[in-house]
């Protein structure tokens, strides 16, 4: 594919950025991304913002960040959902030939609302919403279905939390760097059985921006581009009762397509690093399998063997992942930015040895819709 990521910018992820509006966060991330690429806003010829009216408490939420994203004299558009989807549309605009450089932003301030009420609104109002479930309780049903189908244990889930919070200690952007034990996770508050508090990602504020450019523009720059090799997204059925919740079929399909585009036939061997959407511990394992990086039901055992550790064969979430900071909407774009840093060799203390990586984003309840990005150091 003739497009690359030429710049990234991230704000720190925090529990509550009380001193900043959405627009302030976007302004910070955009300027960091422009500096990173060594270009000015005048070099950007179109912009995609990613936001959510529900999470922002604002109809037409993209309006709030228009000025901060520099859209005033440019063609622009807005995606609602995870930042990886915003980036997918940005890629389409860049590849269309109409534009050379597309700026993508995604922001969220979970601190400004009540996430339980907002995710309850993802349930259909006619048959389901009145039961009062939200993202955590719905995910708990999926966690149980996955554990039941694969024999994955609560201890294995807990180990994901230990690994990712530990990884976060090397990530200056992470919200929750800490050393915890399996016992700490299992003894933490049981929110919705089988999910403990430390099985769940926190509520967070943050913004991420990336810049996608076509090959001709990349030639003019003095930066290390990271090349986009494959991007695909796919949605499963909506009603949880229509899905086999123990499987990530839509992710499998998206991954298959993205790998085909990238010419990857054996992802377990050819992918060096994965940043996945671990909103809950069990999801990291499910998504690793869905991404074809482990056989179905085997990720828990591989995790125990240390294979997904920072020094393992396939480091997963060396950034600390969503468990260490989860600005919804921006979370997937952070995954892309982290893979970009890794492939450039600029990931600081969390650097792993990687030539090719995969990043993932999710929309909806229990991973209903996935977006997969395959990135490469080389063209």
């Amino acid at each position, binding site marked *: 594919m003739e497009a690359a990521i030429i710049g990234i910018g991230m704000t720190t992820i925090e529990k509550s950025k*009380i*001193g*900043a509006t959405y627009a*302030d966060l976007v*302004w*910070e991330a955009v300027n960091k991304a422009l500096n990173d690429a060594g270009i000015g806003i005048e070099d950007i010829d179109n912009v995609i913002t990613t936001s959510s009216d529900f999470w922002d*408490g604002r109809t037409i939420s993209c309006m709030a960040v228009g000025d901060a994203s520099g859209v005033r004299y440019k063609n622009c558009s807005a995606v609602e959902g995870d930042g990886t989807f915003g980036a997918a549309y940005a890629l389409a605009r860049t590849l269309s030939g109409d534009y050379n450089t597309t700026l993508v932003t995604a922001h969220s301030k979970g601190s400004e609302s*009540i996430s*339980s*009420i907002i*995710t*309850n609104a993802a349930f259909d*109002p*006619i*048959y*389901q919403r*009145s*039961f*009062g*479930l*939200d993202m*955590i*309780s719905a995910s*708990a*049903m*999926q966690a*149980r*279905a996955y554990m*039941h189908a694969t024999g994955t244990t609560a201890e294995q889930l807990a180990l994901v939390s230990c690994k990712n919070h530990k990884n976060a200690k090397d990530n200056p952007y992470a919200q929750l760097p800490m050393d915890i034990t399996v016992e700490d996770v299992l003894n933490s*508050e*049981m*929110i*919705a*059985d*089988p*999910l403990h508090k430390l099985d769940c990602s926190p509520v967070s504020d943050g913004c991420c921006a990336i810049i996608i450019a076509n090959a001709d523009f990349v030639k003019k720059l003095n930066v290390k581009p990271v090349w986009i090799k494959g991007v695909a997204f796919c949605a499963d*059925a*909506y*009603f*949880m*009762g*229509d899905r086999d*919740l*123990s499987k990530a079929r839509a992710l499998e399909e998206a991954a298959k397509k993205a790998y085909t585009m990238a010419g990857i036939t054996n992802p377990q061997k050819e992918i060096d690093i994965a940043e996945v959407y671990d909103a809950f511990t069990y999801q990291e394992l499910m998504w690793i399998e869905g991404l074809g990086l482990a056989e179905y039901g085997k990720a828990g055992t591989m995790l125990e063997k240390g294979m997904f550790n920072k020094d393992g064969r396939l480091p997963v979430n060396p950034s600390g992942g969503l468990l260490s900071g989860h600005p919804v909407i921006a979370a997937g774009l952070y995954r892309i930015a982290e893979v970009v840093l890794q492939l450039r060799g600029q990931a600081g203390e969390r650097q792993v040895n990687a030539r090719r990586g995969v990043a993932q984003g999710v929309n909806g309840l229990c991973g209903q819709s996935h977006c997969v990005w395959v990135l490469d150091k080389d063209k």
Partner: protein
Amino acid sequence: MEDIFNGIEPQVYKSQISVPYQWWAGETASKFFITLRDEKKILGKQCPQCGKVFCPPKKTCTYCYVETNEWKEVGPKGKVLTYTIVYRQLASLKKKVPVACGLIQLEGSDNAMLHYIEEIEPEKITTGMQVEAVFADEKSASIHAISHFRPVK
């Protein structure tokens, strides 16, 4: 960039979006709810192409994208496909915790319905457990015409 706040106390402006909603259920869900209320019967609807019976019923088949056509009575017994017991009083919950909720596949149906599981200690619920619908005393043309599901005795 936070420097500009030196000596300034950040002000937080509180508000809320309160928009009233009325969701039209449509003819398919309406028939399902009215039958639940008036006849205490649970209806599914079948896809003419793949033969799957959906309960809760839907107008179009998720898989074949054609309109479902034939109504079939399903349940009132079924099995628990998966479930959770919510212990934290989440802001979205109306009931007092602990609340047990599960996906219940009714006999004769190919998908599952979200509903409460009660009349059992939550810790004793198991995946695959047989349950049956208990109808509510209060009549309503809604999913709450079924009060909850309980273990089959």
